[in-house]
């Protein structure tokens, strides 16, 4: 269902413009707030919905096949590491869910250049970074001698 922006909630910060994978969230020239310029290229990935600090973006099911009146709203709490969903059916039923999104602090990934550099042997071997340790088996599987055979 394509996205739309609530007039009363958008304060024109541009986060949605920056994040949209489809390049379809842009700034309206009359109100200087965001809007979806191309709903037929909206995948409903919810990237903009989650990124909006004012919760100003919502989704209305694709008119081709989604009857009106339902809502699927999301709250992504990045620091806490959770995502919460509130789903209201067209007939009023409510479902709520919360799921984890990350187990480590944001920004905590160790850069690859912080690891001890690999030696020249490793460079010419089939091993990738952190292997074989990161495979958690003794050695990288290799194929023993094979006879190339046509199928």
């Amino acid at each position, binding site marked *: *269902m394509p996205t739309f922006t609530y007039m009363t909630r958008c304060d024109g910060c541009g986060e949605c413009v*920056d*994040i949209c*994978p*489809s*390049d379809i969230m*842009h700034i309206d020239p009359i109100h200087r707030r965001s809007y979806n310029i*191309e709903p*037929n*290229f*909206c*995948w409903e*990935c*919810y*990237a903009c919905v989650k990124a909006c600090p004012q919760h100003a973006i919502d*989704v209305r*099911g*694709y*008119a*081709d*096949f*989604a009857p009106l009146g339902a*809502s*699927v709203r999301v709250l992504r709490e990045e620091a806490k590491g959770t995502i919460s*969903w509130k*789903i209201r*059916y*067209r*007939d009023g*039923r409510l*479902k709520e*869910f919360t*799921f984890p*999104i*990350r*187990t*480590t*602090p944001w*920004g905590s*990934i160790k*850069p690859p*250049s912080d690891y001890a550099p690999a030696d020249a042997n490793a*460079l*010419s071997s*089939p091993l*990738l*970074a*952190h292997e074989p340790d990161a*495979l*958690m*088996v003794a050695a*990288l*599987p*290799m*194929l023993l001698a*094979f006879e*190339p*055979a*046509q*199928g």
Partner: protein
Amino acid sequence: MSLFSSRKTRFVDTDILVIGGGFGGCGATYESRYWGRNLKITLVEKANIERSGAVAHGLSAINCYMGMRWGENQPEDFVRYARGDLMGLVREDLIFDIARHVDSTVHKFEEWGLPIMLNPETGRYQREGKWQIMIHGESYKPIIAEAARKSASEVFNRIMVTHLLMDKAHPNRVAGAVGFSVRDRHFYVFRAKAVIVAAGGASHIFRPRSIGEGVGRTWYAPWSSASAYGLLLHAGAQMIQMENRIVLARFKDGYGPVGAWFLLLKAYATNAYGVNYEATRFEEMKALVGKYAEITPVPTCLRNHAMLQEIKAGNGPIYMHTQEVLNSREKEEIGWEDFLDMTVGQAVVWASQNIDPKEKPSELITSEPYVMGSHATCSGAWASGPEDCAPADYQWGYNRMTTVEGLFGAGDTIGGSAHKFSSGSFTEGRIAGKSAVRYVMDLKGEPPQVDEAQIRQLEKTIFKPLETYAVGRNEIVAGSVAPSYISPLQGLQRLEKLMDEYVGGISTFYVTSEPMLNRGLELLTMLKEDLDHIGAEDIHQLQRAWELNHRVWTAEAVLRHTLYRQETRWPGYYYRGDFPKLDDAEWHAFTASQYDAKTGEWRMSKLPVHHIIA
């Protein structure tokens, strides 16, 4: 460029250029940095790497994980599985290579913070199925993007790469790429020693099932604009299996995933009358594909075939009986999270149509066709395989290098390497990244040189649609109908219609034939000519114009390969009405094409399928 144009040319010099910031590109960036501490590594993405690519929503499962640490699977078994699913035609060396490395990728993902569900009894990763594990994957892409940002020398977001640049001194060697910024509108020239293309495969080359806004809800991302193939074709890279389009059986309209439902929750599908139809269609499948009908698990295309036959017989709609399996809150959460982590649109369909999966079944349907290289399909570039185990004619130097020197690929770009999904694509990116580092370090003599004249010519070509619109617009009063140009969307709609009607889309139940393909090629050729007359109203439309360009060229490759393979290898993906059966005697081979930009000719050939695993 006009007198008052403020457009500048920005040159970026780098060692390794990674085009595409999805899972393949982020993997390539990470690994390049690990092995090339002092190299300059530049990542370019047309959107923003934080959420770009097919994993924009997130994912609910990792579909490629061996679990070697627990003795769950071995890479050889994975090769057999993927080979069976693709009816025998895969690059076994490439798949083995990914399967033996993918566990280390997944373990790093967990270390980085991806929450993987655990089986409470065994303490191991919770399996969805034999090869798949369940994750809480809403932030899968942001986590991976963080790793890429910490690896690249620089990340350029919002730059659409339109063409690769070739070395002017050294034949058949890549020298960089050109493109434009979708924000500051400047022309960008990247000069590189090695290029890794990890761009998207093709959505929107066949008419989608929906017709209005709903065309946005394709199964594969609408921003997968076939740039992986569009860039490589023009560089003269050899491509394989472009006819191997994929059709998916998914929840109708929302295209929500079915894996967790079938494999983990053990739901089943029936026709409208409650009949489990798959089993009843076995004999007829055997008549089409012979011994391949006995492969277990049943190949994806054959399952589609059974569903199609059922629908054609008038026994639809086909239903997934979710209501039979959601007998606990925990299962209900798994079922909903499956959608909310990766296809929120399906949750919106349920809420809008008052479908509670605990109470009602949901319709399944086969999708429109897609062309890509990382799923139950393997279209893409012919690439050199792993040096330690690839047959001699499968390798010519660096692992994952295409037939163009210095040009590497990962993810949807690479052909023959099926069933990679997210973890496998990242892994293939890692493989390509390490190879590119070795290639750069081995480079002797002059680094690749770009051709100044070619760059200026490309600049004109790239920005021409803006000119076409601005000038041609003067002919009409207003509106979208002009005699001298068409918009990118109008071009896309023409492409989707002709591919659907002539190259085996939904309107023909995926059937095509030589007469149909020849007619389709006539129309496609005229569309290709009309690409010179695309009018782009603004910079966003210019991006759409080049996405269309990549799609049209990819569509031609798809058509030519479909014409070339004279058999029906994957019933349920597509059918040759004139060659309705599988023909191993003639066609147990890869179809290959190579486009010569100088002569405009396509050279088709067969490449051997070697079975290196018994």
